[in-house]
């Protein structure tokens, strides 16, 4: 028997949604404590940050890429609800490809940043924060790949596509964290 079809008093959210909500809350505390480390270290020492626009090109481009990819993720959710399976596949593919472009851009930026983890504390903070964000983007990409594979195998229907919704929410989260990090590390 299916554990999920027996009588029980559950919440009105799907099990996956509840789990994802808690995971994202936990991850937020993680990023928040990292940011606290950053802010406290920033107060201690001279921060070797240059705010030239040239330095901001790649991060700005990456921000645009990530924001566009969230639109793709959103469209994917809409597509499956309207049973447009080929559109679903297309949007999922777009989102994950844009995600990969983002990560590539990040890696390029890191290797040309002219600083290292063992420089003054800022180097460590920068790479740690951005690095963990990048890992989350990659996890999101993996999530999207799995969703795409399952979509192609016909696993989803307009009424049963929890994983697509969860994947999209995770993608929104990754973008939201990026906005905060971008502001903290590049603009402030």
């Amino acid at each position, binding site marked *: 028997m299916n554990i999920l079809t027996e009588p029980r008093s559950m919440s009105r959210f799907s099990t996956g949604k509840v789990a994802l909500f808690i995971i994202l809350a936990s991850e937020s505390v993680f990023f928040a*404590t990292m940011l606290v480390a950053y802010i406290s270290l920033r107060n201690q020492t001279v921060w070797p940050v240059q705010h030239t626009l040239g330095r901001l090109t790649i991060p700005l481009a990456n921000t645009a890429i990530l924001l566009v990819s969230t639109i793709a993720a959103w469209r994917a959710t809409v597509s499956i609800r309207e049973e447009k399976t080929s559109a679903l596949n297309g949007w999922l593919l777009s989102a994950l490809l844009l995600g990969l472009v983002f990560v590539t851009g990040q890696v390029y930026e890191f290797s040309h940043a002219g600083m290292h983890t063992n420089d003054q504390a800022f180097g460590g903070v920068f790479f740690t924060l951005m690095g963990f964000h990048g890992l989350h983007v990659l996890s999101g990409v993996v999530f999207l790949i799995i969703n795409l594979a399952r979509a192609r195998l016909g696993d989803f229907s307009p009424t049963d596509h929890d994983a697509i919704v969860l994947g999209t929410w995770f993608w929104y989260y990754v973008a939201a964290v990026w906005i905060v990090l971008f502001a903290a590390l590049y603009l402030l």
Partner: protein
Amino acid sequence: MTVQTQIISKMREATQGGFLSWTVTVDHKRIGILYLLSASLFFLVGGFEALLMRIQLAQPDGKFLSPDMYNQIFTMHGTTMIFLVVMPLAAGFGNYLIPLMIGARDMAFPKLNALSYWTFLFGGVFMYSSFIFGGAPNDGWFSYAPLTEKLYSPTHGMDFWIMGILLLGFATTIGSINFIVTVIQLRAPGLTLTRLPLFVWTMTVTSFLAVFSLPSLTTAVLLLFLDRQLGAHFYNVGQGGSALLWQHLFWFFGHPEVYILILPAMGIVSEVIPVFSGKPLFGYPAVVFSAIAIGFLGFTVWAHHMFATGMPSATLLFFAADSFLIGVPTGVKIFAWLATMWKGKLRFATPMLFAVGFVAMFLIGGLDGIHLAVVPVDWQLTDTYYVVSHLHYVLFGGAIFGIFSGVYYWFPKITGRRLQEGLGKWHFWLMFIGMNLVFMPMHILGVEGMPRRIYTYGAGRGWEIWNFIETIGALIITVSVLIFVVNFFASLRKEANNEADPWDGFTLEWKTASPPPVYNFAEIPSVRGRRPLWDEKHPDLADWKVGK
């Protein structure tokens, strides 16, 4: 049959029953047992470490352990008892009981559950392997920077600690998510949140504490790892880092952590006392709210571990005020337990002895905490044996006693037979006496100026007599633990009588067989109140009839 089919069918056979089936199980009851057994083994190891320390400290200028060995042992003792004993024991009970208590067939994510257990076990073994790979971590369980930087801690001990903590943190986080989702999603019909057993409530609050506090620890140790291995400078003062950053990050986790350690035991005691008094828990809503309040307030008091670090007065006073405040919900619980017993019909089986012992000992630990929250007094008492006394009264007299109460209470459900009462009573009284002999004099030592974490002390400051008495107490505790081990194995060798409800209990786990079938309940029960079994056994006095 092809070779592959043969292999697969052989594997299936092998994992159907017997030893190997335990390695692939996703059944919450088996995973619960695995947690309980593993944590019990670590308890013996951690206890042995404590005994070694007490032997070293029994006399001044002790030469039993070298300074470095002592430092490794006190570090591993603390780390073990916290991460490898109390937390997984709670996880074990949570795993076994939560689905049963809420009338479900398993946890929400059974495979994740198994991953969580095996990650915990691997993390613990990994940490202990440090002993043979150049030395165990030796900077204390809260590992202050910059002592933990490579410059001052060159062996790999700290790296083992960091990796172990990351693994254990991961295991606890996914385990906690599993608990929370299970409680939200899989309750039996009629089982609203206001009817949840107290143990389920406290495990849920504990799980929320875990998922919100562990990330801070993860950050702290990740940054330390980067400092040690990649030359970063988070805690390296000379290069723009901050020594206090570690303390804030760590204690932001560390304080909720101590509530993670005590809340499950409070939940157990809140189950045992009503059953052995024959009455419902007094003031259920207040007890639930106080658990939530403790959880919430627990995030606001962390810097009371840092009163001697030179923070401004306003900061000190804020954290002092909050620390006083957190005593209020704790007091509410103690009064509720007393009121539950009031005019009840008390049965003093071993589970009840440990539950009452919990109340008595936890009270002492809590009152100690008040002393420590008073900032100017804390300036004298912090980092002394007074703190060691306080923490052991709440963690040993509290958490461990509570857990033993649960062990004696639920042993019949898990194994189909009770632990022997006679040996149980010996265990309780010897452990109670031993525990007080060890930790009561530590109040005196703290007040008399003995700092903590010293591998020896010189004669002539009045500390010798108390240290000696404490070592005697440790030996008595050792005997009590051995009695429990004997009881455990002797009881298992007896024939099972498979009583479903040996204690005349109130909650759903007693409705099914002992041990329960793999599917828990033939039919998912529906409930109308907080004590479904009480309602069944006493239809005229049913809670829902009285409007509760």
